[in-house]
């Protein structure tokens, strides 16, 4: 043993009685002395006033959880209702006029059909769709969520949920990393560094996927609107849609807790370690500044990534739809091959192929599904210029009539979106953080397996009942 440590041990034993906290206590006493001299005014020791009243309300046995649910449902409702008009406008501008314009240009310069196809009908179309559908909701959701965050509400949510996490054998801070994951799973995984215990950190990483990241919101919102909201009476459609999305988010929390518990009892056995959670004072958020920075930081950044992924994905979609093997396109082969499995779990082949194409980024699932559906059925709508005015109603038409979707498909798609494997960015982040092939593979396949099992069960029960 090092001489230094030996000496330290010896002297420590010698002064053992003198109080191990002597230094800490002296420091705190000094800090108190100084602050008593220089700080004046009310509220020096403990806070009173409406901060505390607000806290009492937000964590009360009666109001705590309802307020939480209402808060998040409210955020989703504002996002859904507020994004409708801008999305339609952008859709008209980019996917209809933009595509038509590009077709003119390409025709004018005499470009070959395949080039026009790859660039305009593939890359451009997917990108245009992503922008028009993703940008408005993101531009509303992120600032709202950020305002909540800045306000200081999120630690209170962690405070409310902590007991559930303790029951699950998880660290209390996992509720914070989980919430971070609702923005972006890669960011949530990185945030798990605030958890010291490796075991609990892994649990947090493996379950972060069940926090629905931004890339999946548009999928849920669209499907929620088209299928779930549509089942409601007229004026209530938005509200029902928003509730279904919020409900899926809550389900994500439930799944996080349950899976954490299972992990803590099986492959990641161990006890919950200690933790302290600070509840910071409420801060009136600076509206304009927050909206500004969250726009740049989150909305544009995530949008940029979606665009970067969308272009190549569009190319892939066009290629698999137009490259022939035998008498069918590659896409048709893939869809046909996966269709039995898809139907079994209440989805279909198109959805499964779309999820394969969308491994780089969740944002492109819906555009891929729509484009594949249109390309495969070679419907009249799949003519250039006409197919692209896809607002929610028309998307619904495409999916139900051309794609053969029904309510089960919609519900299971929401479930699958919640549970399926993380995107490649998140997976790379997990690899970077864990440096473990084993756990990275777990984080990819465990959710996927769960998604398949849950969807299959729902499909089986649904069919048995109806």
């Amino acid at each position, binding site marked *: *043993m*090092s*001489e*230094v*440590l*030996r*000496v*330290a041990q010896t*002297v*420590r034993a*010698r*002064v053992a009685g*003198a109080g*191990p906290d*002597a*230094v*800490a206590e*002296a*420091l*705190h006493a*000094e*800090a*108190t002395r*100084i*602050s008593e*001299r*220089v*700080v*004046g*005014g*009310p*509220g*020096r020791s403990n*806070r009173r*006033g409406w901060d505390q009243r607000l806290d009492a309300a937000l964590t009360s046995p009666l109001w705590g959880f309802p307020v939480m649910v209402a808060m998040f449902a409210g955020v989703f409702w504002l996002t859904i209702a507020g994004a409708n008009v801008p999305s339609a406008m952008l859709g008209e501008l980019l996917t209809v006029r933009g595509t038509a314009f590009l077709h003119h240009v390409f025709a004018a310069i005499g470009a070959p059909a395949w080039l026009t196809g790859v660039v305009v009908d593939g890359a451009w179309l997917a990108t245009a769709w992503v922008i028009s559908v993703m940008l408005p909701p993101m531009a509303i959701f992120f600032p709202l969520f*950020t305002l909540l*965050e*800045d306000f*200081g509400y*999120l*630690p209170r949510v962690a405070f409310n949920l902590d007991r559930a996490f303790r029951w699950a054998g998880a660290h209390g*801070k996992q509720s*914070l990393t989980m919430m971070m994951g609702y923005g972006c799973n890669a960011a949530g995984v*990185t*945030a798990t*560094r*605030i958890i*010291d215990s490796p075991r609990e950190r892994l649990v947090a990483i493996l379950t972060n996927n069940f926090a629905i990241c931004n890339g999946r919101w548009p999928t849920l919102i669209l499907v929620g609107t088209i299928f779930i909201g549509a089942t409601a009476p007229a004026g209530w459609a938005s509200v029902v849609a928003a509730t279904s999305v919020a409900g899926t988010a809550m389900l994500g929390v439930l799944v996080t807790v349950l899976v954490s518990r299972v992990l803590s009892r099986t492959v990641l056995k161990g006890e919950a370690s200690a933790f302290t959670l*600070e509840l*910071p*004072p409420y*801060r*009136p958020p*600076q509206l304009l*500044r927050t909206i500004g*920075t*969250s726009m*740049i*930081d*989150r909305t544009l950044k995530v949008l940029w990534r979606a665009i970067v992924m969308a272009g190549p994905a569009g190319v892939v979609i066009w290629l698999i739809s137009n490259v022939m093997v035998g008498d069918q396109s590659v896409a048709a082969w893939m869809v046909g091959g996966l269709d039995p499995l898809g139907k079994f779990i209440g989805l279909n082949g198109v959805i499964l192929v779309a999820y394969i194409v969308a491994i780089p980024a969740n944002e492109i699932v819906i555009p891929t599904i729509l484009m594949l559906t249109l390309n495969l059925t070679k419907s009249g709508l799949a003519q250039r210029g006409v197919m692209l005015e896809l607002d929610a109603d028309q998307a619904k038409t495409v999916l139900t009539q051309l794609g053969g979707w029904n309510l089960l498909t919609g519900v299971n798609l929401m479930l699958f979106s919640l549970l399926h494997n993380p995107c490649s960015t998140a997976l790379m982040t997990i690899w970077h953080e864990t440096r473990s092939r084993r756990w990275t593979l777990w984080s990819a396949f465990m959710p996927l397996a769960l998604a398949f099992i849950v969807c299959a069960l729902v499909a089986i029960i649904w069919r048995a009942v109806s």
Partner: protein
Amino acid sequence: MSLNLKIAESEPRAPIALSCGGCASCGVGVFRRSGRLSAKADATVAVMGNPNVGKSTVFNGLTGLRQHVGNWPGKTVMRAEGAFRLGERLYRLIDLPGTYSLMSQSPDEEAARDYLLFGQPDVTVVVCDAGALERNLNLVLQVREVAGAMVLALNLMDEAERKGIRVDERALARDLGVPVVPMAARSGKGLAELANAIDGLSTGRLVCRPAVSARLDPEIEAAVVEIELALKAEFPDLPHVRWIALRLLEGDADLEREVTQGTLGRLGHPPEAAL
């Protein structure tokens, strides 16, 4: 390039807490954000503070970098670097993870502590929440013992005002012997003064009063000295020997590990990596 400020003056001067914007008439310049570093810096500045005191806001304000800042403790997990210029001098800033004390034990708090001890920044900024000063002073006092040149950034003054809390910054500066800069970094207030204080400490224009260590029992004092001697024998160039000896007396597991591994005194993240 560390400046030994205790030798710079023959007698300590009272530190100056600037409350004006720092115009040409008092000879201090306006600072310019430099974002990412491209040239060699004149001095390195470490930015420390408790979690959730607006440290990253201060950092962003000085460097112009855009890290998002939320309102929950423990959010800064990555170490950010940036720079600003004042006059001819280029200052490199390191945003360290929030920590409640130098004796804490989570990995990113360890990183903050290790950087302060072994990275030896020229100037250390400790960002404090004016509305929670008592708690923040714990870290301030610890850093004070270890850092040569320190400035206290008294942030969130706007919130303190809202709560009706008043801080006498001149008395605080007198008590601690370091410059104190009141700030409301969210609105950009106090940033110029902070930049000037950093510049002042770095160039020797401002001086910190030498720190007085906490008084300890003679028995404990003797024990600390024994450990110090053993440390100096095994790690000849080690800085802050007394502080480390105190921690080893308390039984700090991480420092013990570093002693066993022989890595004591070496940094985990080399600061030069930024260039």
